[in-house]
């Protein structure tokens, strides 16, 4: 497939023949092109080859220039990476949101983090940097040094000894006539968020949901314009959690970065590290042992189980069904117990390492897992029965937050959101990685296209995960856990995607031959699900806003549990095993009048 595409591109653009090549299975890379040529190629690929899915736009620092990498794919799932550049002194680039609606957030990121001037990008709130961030600071440019930036005053103190105006590249002057090439359609005005829209009627009320709101576990601001109970307009402001992970990764070694990547998301920590490790392993040409691949699969599916159970609880809470919330979180604890036994932590289990995994699954743990899987299977079947039949639940979920098949493609939705709209998209099937090459996954789809469909998809996916875990436990091969990965990674770039619980997770890793990466771009699945949010909210009811937001399962940062034994002198300096720890925590609660041992699991 990828070779056909290369031939087709070379046939259409003969001058590109030596610039297009297959870099990995299902990956086609096109070398850096001047902007005019790039626009011709991307437009042709979009219109003629129907590469209509936009995955990501990645900014890179190329010294004097800013580079832009566009990842697009079509029905044959070959990801084409197209590159263009603009000089840092005049970093103007044409917005591609006219072709790919899902590029809006990614191009905003280019503006905020690289100082690119994206011509034709619809107006909207800042993303991802805060509103009070200085206009001339672009943190992902290489010359920008985080140590010179004072976070309290928001001032950049340029190093006087260093190159003049380090980090203070001359602000681009007012653009001269920028030739707007006619071949790329202008983004339509209607795609602009409602922020700029003025309402004439007096009946409209604006309700802020967030940044602090009981239904949000993570800051995000949703400005909802209401007419009565009907949502007339919605402006989505996200980016409150930007922590500068990508910049941090560039100044650390590959091994140190693993720990940062583990903390990108509180729930999909394993999915992110898997993608990162796969990228590094691909760059250094290491094949990891089979046992490690199986353990990665088992942990990934356990993670899917606990993520979906968490989601089910959150969804129940959003629609006032607290019983479902409590019951599903009770069962989630069983999964977390297993993960604790395996990795020592509930959330950041740290199982992955470069070249394999750090933890082994012994016979005891296997036994424990099988027991838990039996328990969970009956519980999840019960939940599935409840979700499909409980009349108030069905009434609240069906017809809410509809994102049709076409809209999913248009906005680039992924994961359970697109699968609930009937798109059989699952990276584990599209390009099986690791142990998924041996254990086939059945894609779960549904055609409700609403929150109800997403609920059913997630519940059925959990049953599928249980099947996968059982199969992997049965087949678990013997052998070593790790392969050696060199300290210095050969220069190159890797585009890796894995299926996180929330959908497709893409990591872009570029190495320059040293022990530190040149650029890491993490595109979490939630990031591309946000694009359709406005569409899902508008026309619905205020009551449905929380569940619609929750239904894409935006990445909540989970708090890690700290095991601190300070203040209790009897326990200070003592190491507790799992059983002792459980007993200790039960005693702790009993001392406060709560007896957890009475609760039947």
């Amino acid at each position, binding site marked *: 497939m990828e070779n056909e595409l290369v031939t087709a591109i070379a046939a259409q653009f003969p001058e590109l023949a030596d610039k297009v090549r297959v870099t990995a299975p299902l990956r086609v890379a096109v070398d850096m092109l001047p902007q005019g040529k790039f626009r011709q190629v991307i437009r042709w690929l979009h219109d003629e080859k129907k590469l209509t899915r936009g995955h990501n736009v990645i900014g890179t620092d190329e010294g004097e220039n800013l580079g832009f990498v566009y990842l697009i794919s079509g029905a044959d799932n070959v990801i084409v990476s197209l590159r263009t550049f603009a000089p840092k002194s005049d970093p103007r680039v044409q917005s591609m949101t006219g072709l790919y609606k899902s590029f809006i957030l990614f191009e905003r990121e280019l503006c905020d983090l690289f100082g690119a001037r994206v011509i034709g990008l619809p107006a909207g709130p800042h993303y991802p940097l805060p509103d009070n961030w200085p206009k001339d600071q672009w943190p992902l440019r290489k010359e920008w040094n985080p140590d010179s930036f004072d976070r309290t005053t928001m001032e950049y103190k340029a190093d006087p000894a260093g190159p003049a105006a380090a980090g203070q590249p001359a602000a681009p002057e007012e653009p001269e006539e920028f030739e707007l090439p006619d071949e790329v359609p202008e983004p339509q005005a209607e795609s602009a968020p409602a922020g700029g829209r003025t309402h004439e009627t007096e009946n409209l009320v604006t*309700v802020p949901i967030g940044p602090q709101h009981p*239904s949000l576990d993570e800051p995000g601001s949703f400005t909802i314009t209401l007419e009565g109970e009907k949502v007339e307009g919605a402006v989505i402001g996200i980016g409150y959690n930007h922590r500068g992970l990508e910049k941090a990764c560039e100044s650390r070694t590959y091994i140190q970065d693993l720990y940062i990547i583990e903390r990108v998301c509180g729930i999909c920590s394993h999915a992110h590290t898997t993608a990162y490790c796969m990228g590094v392993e691909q760059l250094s040409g290491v094949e990891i042992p089979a046992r490690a691949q199986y353990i990665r699969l088992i942990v990934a599916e356990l993670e899917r189980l606990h993520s979906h159970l968490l989601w089910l609880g959150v969804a129940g809470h*959003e629609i*006032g069904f607290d019983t479902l919330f409590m019951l599903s979180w009770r069962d989630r604890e069983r999964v977390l117990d297993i993960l604790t036994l395996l990795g020592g932590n509930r959330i950041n289990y740290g199982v992955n390492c470069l070249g394999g995994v750090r933890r082994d699954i012994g016979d005891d743990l296997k036994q424990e897992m099988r027991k838990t899987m039996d328990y969970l299977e009956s519980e999840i079947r019960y939940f599935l029965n409840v979700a499909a039949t409980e009349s108030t639940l069905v009434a*609240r979920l069906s017809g809410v937050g509809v994102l049709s098949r076409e809209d999913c493609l248009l906005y680039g939705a992924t994961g359970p959101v697109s699968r609930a709209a009937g798109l059989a998209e699952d990276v584990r099937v599209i390009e099986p990685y690791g142990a998924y090459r041996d254990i086939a996954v059945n894609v779960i789809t549904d055609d409700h296209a609403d929150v109800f469909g997403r609920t059913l998809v997630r519940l059925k996916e959990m049953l599928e995960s249980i099947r996968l875990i059982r199969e992997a436990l049965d087949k678990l091969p013997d052998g070593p856990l790790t392969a050696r990965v060199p300290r210095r990674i050969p220069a190159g770039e890797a585009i890796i995607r894995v299926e996180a619980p929330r959908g497709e997770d893409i990591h872009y890793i570029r190495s320059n031959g040293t022990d530190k990466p040149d650029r890491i771009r993490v595109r979490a699945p939630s990031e591309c699900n946000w694009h359709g949010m406005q569409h899902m909210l508008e026309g619905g009811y*205020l009551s449905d*806003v*929380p569940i619609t937001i929750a239904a894409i399962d935006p990445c909540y940062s989970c708090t890690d549990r700290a095991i601190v034994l300070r203040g209790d002198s009897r326990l200070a300096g003592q190491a507790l095993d799992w059983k002792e720890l459980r007993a200790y925590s039960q005693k702790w609660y009993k001392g406060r009048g709560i*007896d957890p041992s*009475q609760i039947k699991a």
Partner: protein
Amino acid sequence: MTILIILLKILVFPGFLFLSVYSFVLQYLDRKLYARLQSRQGPPWYQPLADFFKLIGKETLIPAEANQAMFKVVPVFCLAAMAAAFIYIPVWGRTAAFSFEGDVIVVLYFLAVPSLASFLAGWYSRSLYATVGSTRVLTQMFAYEVPMFLALLAPTLLSGTWSVAGNTAYYAAHPLLVLVNLPALLVTLVAAQCKLERTPFDAPEAETEIVSGPLVEYGGRYLAFFSFSRDCELTVVISLFAAMFLPFSTGTAWADFVLYFVKTLAVLFVLCLARAATARLRINQIVSFCWKYLAPAAMLQVILNLVLREVFFK
């Protein structure tokens, strides 16, 4: 002497003090049962009391834009209405502390006060969430008032008396007639859940949507009295339900008093079960549910009772 007895009846038993204590007990049982249904541990027995006193000790903040007088008066108003309604409901034996022909109507109107109070509280808080909550309170009131009134008045058509105690006495003498009122019983049970704004009918205070609706600006002792009066509302509604639809009694006062507990706890159990087993409906779904199913059922009951009275009881 008689004045003293009257005062004792109003303030101590079966009046305000009994109502307060029993409301705390019911709140505790409701929470405990709800927790156990969710396989949680639940609060210790003194939790409602602890919550109440904790809130009383907290600093009270009143929004600058809110109407100060209304903000303070509304919780007291609400509590007073509940205390007044309760004295017309039989607790000890078949008779209430006070009773007169037509007190059913009075109790029903007193019962409308908490909803109105919650509307006023939200409206005068001048908060966005509270305003949305207030409009939901009123919308919901228009949904359940008619079916609830019709269903509660249906039994009086057969008994021929418009007093709660009179009704209890009449049906205690003719216990089988309760079966005739079965549709009204079911309608009232659902409408009571709606009236008390409990799941699935808790759209007015939907925590995850509008934070907590009308009471969002309340805190400190005003919130303490507000939530206390909502507990009293629960007790009054359950007691009224028991008096109108479950009038089984032995004729001995103390035995009836025990029966009163059995009846009210049974109703609480059903209401709690409904709360644990459902998701919150949207306000438009509530309105259409009430008018599509509850109101016609209540109407049929009224017609049935009118026909029965004309045919059999003349």
